[in-house]
């Protein structure tokens, strides 16, 4: 056996062990997550929510909507936010140097008037050009500022916020009517909670009625269908599991609620990354742990945010590349947390897991495929082991996806028709037959582009939010081309 052959054999064995350990861990998280979802589903009853509203036990919220060139969807999104079922909230739209008609649409739709305004400039941001108020909607404030990126826009919104909780929400998202109420419930129940993340579900294919998703239908393209399974797995199993273990590292940038004083304490969002959502959560954990302050950052499966996911493969790959670059930037920035007992389960378990499996996973996967090709070329590939291992990896992924589809089936608002259920089932099978591998390849390349393209958002076409249904693509995503 020559050296190359020995190295290849050694790598293959390592890769199989890596896969087996990852599968075991992920199954464990998934089980913990499923259990958490089941308990959570019983925790908050309709009576409880009604009590909260009727008896004035809630915390006011400032919803912050950063927007960049969103003329197609901004009015529909703002309309959906201002009609949320919540007793006291304001909506702050921050146009981050939009060059299209975003501001004009807002001015026209909500009768905005400019007014000089004083506010606490606690977080440094790019200059705010003007602040406008609506003559029709008392809770709507629109700020126009120079371009500085999504994180900068959110920081400007936090400066303008009047209420103790801030909820950054993407402008291409819709929220369930009770989303804010369900999320803020966590702050009322436990005053050590400093941030709450909700579930994000794909909007594609849904019928939109009065600014809310109505009936759910499977979108036309497989790329969109596959993401429905992916999102269900990531939120209902992954994040629910991490949260249950007290080691949640990510709250989706699409929708999360934070205690304003906590965000101000750590200096707001970091503007030098495309993964500003994860970075903020890591920094909150870190700074609070360092200061010895009791804190909890939790995921709650109930508040649901609907987002339009990329409808074509190219856009999806760009998005995943950005996510992966963001992941590495953040892991590197907070490398002192790795294996550090000072940060408890986070330092000893969550951060090492993210380094080893989320960060390096695509690298191991792609190198694994390369080693297989080399082994095949050298004629040393054991075909039986190859096919068995491939089948095992695919089957394991399918089991987890099916579990996620099962959790989705338990939601009252689910894909209800028999054909949609069958497509969902098929999508969970198809996902691991090429799609997953393509995404892994994109993430593999992204690993090596982290330093060079740290702030590059990329351009992702979106269809925009329309009153009937969402599908197709013609719209430019916010905060692209940075």
């Amino acid at each position, binding site marked *: 056996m020559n050296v190359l052959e020995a190295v290849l054999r050694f790598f293959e064995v390592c890769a199989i062990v890596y896969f087996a350990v990852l599968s075991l861990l992920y199954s464990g998280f998934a089980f913990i997550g499923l259990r958490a979802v089941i308990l959570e589903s019983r925790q908050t009853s309709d009576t409880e929510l009604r009590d909260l509203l009727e008896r004035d036990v809630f915390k006011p919220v400032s919803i912050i909507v950063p927007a960049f060139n969103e003329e197609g969807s901004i009015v529909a999104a703002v309309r959906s936010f201002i009609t949320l079922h919540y007793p006291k909230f304001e909506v702050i739209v921050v146009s981050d140097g939009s060059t299209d008609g975003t501001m004009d649409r807002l001015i026209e739709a909500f*009768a905005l008037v400019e007014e000089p305004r004083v506010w606490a400039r606690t977080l440094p941001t790019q200059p705010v050009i003007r602040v406008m108020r609506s003559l*029709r909607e008392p809770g709507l404030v629109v700020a126009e500022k120079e371009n500085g990126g999504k994180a900068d826009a959110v920081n400007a919104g936090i400066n303008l916020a009047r209420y103790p909780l801030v909820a950054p929400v993407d402008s291409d998202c819709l929220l369930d009517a009770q989303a804010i109420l369900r999320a803020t419930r966590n702050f009322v129940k436990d005053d050590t909670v400093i941030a709450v993340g909700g579930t994000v579900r794909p909007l594609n294919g849904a019928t939109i009625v009065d600014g809310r998703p109505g009936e759910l239908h499977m979108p036309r393209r497989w790329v969109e269908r596959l993401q429905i399974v992916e999102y269900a797995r990531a939120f209902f199993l992954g994040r629910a599991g991490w949260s249950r273990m007290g080691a949640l590292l990510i709250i989706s940038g699409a929708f999360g609620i934070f205690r304003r004083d906590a965000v101000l304490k750590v200096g707001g969002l970091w503007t030098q990354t495309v993964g500003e959502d994860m970075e903020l959560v890591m920094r909150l954990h870190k700074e609070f742990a360092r200061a010895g302050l009791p804190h909890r950052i939790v995921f709650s499966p109930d508040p649901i945010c609907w987002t339009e996911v990329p409808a074509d493969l190219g856009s999806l790959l760009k998005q995943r590349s950005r996510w992966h670059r963001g992941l590495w930037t953040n892991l590197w920035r907070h490398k002192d947390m790795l294996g550090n007992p000072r940060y408890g389960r986070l330092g000893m378990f969550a951060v090492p897991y993210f380094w080893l499996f989320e960060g390096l996973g695509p690298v191991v996967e792609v190198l694994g495929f390369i080693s297989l090709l080399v082994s095949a070329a050298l004629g040393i590939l054991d075909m039986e082991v190859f096919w068995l291992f491939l*089948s095992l990896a695919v089957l394991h992924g399918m089991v987890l996806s099916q579990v996620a589809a099962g959790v989705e089936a*338990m939601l009252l608002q689910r894909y209800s028709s028999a054909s949609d259920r069958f497509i969902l089932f098929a999508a969970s099978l198809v996902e691991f037959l090429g799609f997953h591998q393509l995404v892994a390849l994109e993430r593999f390349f992204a690993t090596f582009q982290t330093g060079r393209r740290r702030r590059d958002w990329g351009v992702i076409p979106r269809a925009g939010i329309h009153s009937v249904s969402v599908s197709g693509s013609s719209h430019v995503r916010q905060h692209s081309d940075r």
Partner: protein
Amino acid sequence: MWRRYGDVTFAIIFAVAISLEAIPLSFLTWTLAARLFGHPGGAGLGSILLGAVGAAAAALILVTTYVLTYAHMSARHERTRAEERQAWVGRWLDILSGSEPEPAGTLDPEGVEALLALRETLRGSESTRIAELLERHGAIRRLERSAGHGRVGGRLDAIVALSNARIPSALLTLVNGVYDSNQLISVASARAAARTLARVEDLFDRDRGATALARAMEAQELPYGIVEEVVVLSEHAASSLIAVLLLHDRPRAPTVRAAIDGIGRLKLLSFAEEVVPFLGHADDEVRAAALRAVSRLGFLPESSHGHVISALTDEVDFIRIHATAAARLLPLPQALALLTERLGDRSWWVRRAAADALVSLGPAGLAHLGRAAREHPDRFARDMAEQALRDQVSNLVRAVVG
């Protein structure tokens, strides 16, 4: 939001599925790790992988079958249940109006559910009759039994049902639930007990129930938010509950905060004097809660004036914010002077609170704001006064525009 049935079975099926997968995967990891460290032997890689593939395939079939069956069956099941529940609602309304006789024997779950929904909707004598029906048919007894035993999900469902039923005889069971070691059960029981306590008419029973609930919450060290919610939910029984919480031997700071916040939220003026000592409490959060409470009550006992005035210059920002809001209740000339001074506070939030408080004082406050906008020595105070006046104009315009 969620279907609350079939989920536990699903979790069990998933547990079986991952166990099926975990055994060969663990064996695979162990064997390969041993080989890496130079200990070959045991079964061949091919046979282990084959076992793992077989196990994963079995797991996939198991989970998929359940998911597809669940999706199909649940839709049918829900249709049937909704129809049955609807039929029961109609039947109960007929029974309540006397046009149909009461059913005999044990009620089915849809019958109980329909009755509970009506108990939430109807008031007065009909609501009392529903409570009697629930008790007479053994529904409350069964719910109490389910609330105390079994798996967490089932217990929570029973507690929520008891919370909707609000039957005084179930109060003791619910208070006992507060002592449960599982915090989910403890919190849900506390809320349900508070809702039930609100329906206890007999004063002696109410005080006894309030005492038991307060003791249970203290023993469990329930968090501030929950205690506050319980106080508010107990409605007209809140006075008894607050009295017990505040009189408790060395009450915890979160409990005191919650009780004081409850006084403010429920506007329990009879407790105004009780709040005063807490205006000088050592704990910042308790002090802030006391200031919030007097502010919400809209009444400052004379003995509290000194506390409020000194809190206006407290080191802690949020104390100054609440003190500023409360200062509007001081005698008018004093309030106007102090609030105008606070317009120049170093904190933006205190300045905002001072401006809002001046607005709430009506024409005199607005006149002071106008003067401050022109003449206040502090630039930030002038800006804030101007901003508050602009907001007033905007509100007026909005009112006119409609």
